[in-house]
């Protein structure tokens, strides 16, 4: 069981990123070529830029630095690193 607050928050952030990955196809319908912010499994903001999403989050008292904000592309970039 995680008791450390930072550890719990990091786990929640990870869970939100995995949620984004799993829902990406579905997100393309409404958020294509936009940035979406996900917190605790919910889309809490969207916008045309990270700066735009940051402003919405701050207005809602949500810290962007601790929030998954991802771009929803039309197609997946492919790269062998």
């Amino acid at each position: 069981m995680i008791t450390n607050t930072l550890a719990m928050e990091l786990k929640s952030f990870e869970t939100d990123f995995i949620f984004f990955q799993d829902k990406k196809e579905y997100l393309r319908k409404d958020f294509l070529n936009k940035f979406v912010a996900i917190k605790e499994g919910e889309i809490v903001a969207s916008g045309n830029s990270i700066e735009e999403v940051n402003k919405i989050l701050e207005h809602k008292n949500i810290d962007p630095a601790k929030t998954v904000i991802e771009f929803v592309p039309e197609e997946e970039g492919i790269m062998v690193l």
Partner: protein
Amino acid sequence: MFKIPLFSGKSLGFERDMVTFSVKYGNFPNLFCKGIVDTGCPFTIISESSIKRTRIPYNSKPSKYNVQLGNINMELRELGICELNFRDEKGDIKKFEQEVYVGIPLVKGYLAQELPSFIGKDFLNNHSLSIINKKEEDNYLMGED
């Protein structure tokens, strides 16, 4: 001995070993990131799209390297020594000091928006961490206290 759990995440078209961590730069609040654990990357890099979620003045930082990621030219700006915090298998936090760069793509486009952060070989070497691959459970980074 401690273990830092990795997770399998899709980035740039493929499933990769990824890890979540926080970055503490100076007096700025923690920045939460997820990054690819990449033994082929010499540097630990925070993506520009990640750092844009903060007010960290990365644009005023010195440019250290121009590199290529795939066919994307990227500038690495030296953020300096930061504290990186990882969750271990027991739910505690492991702290590390690490030189961190900000990766700024020099092109526009959807691929540039998706460039990930990287935990590089520099971090693994500096802190004597190894990637352990497991058959039926999540992979992890192993280190010694």
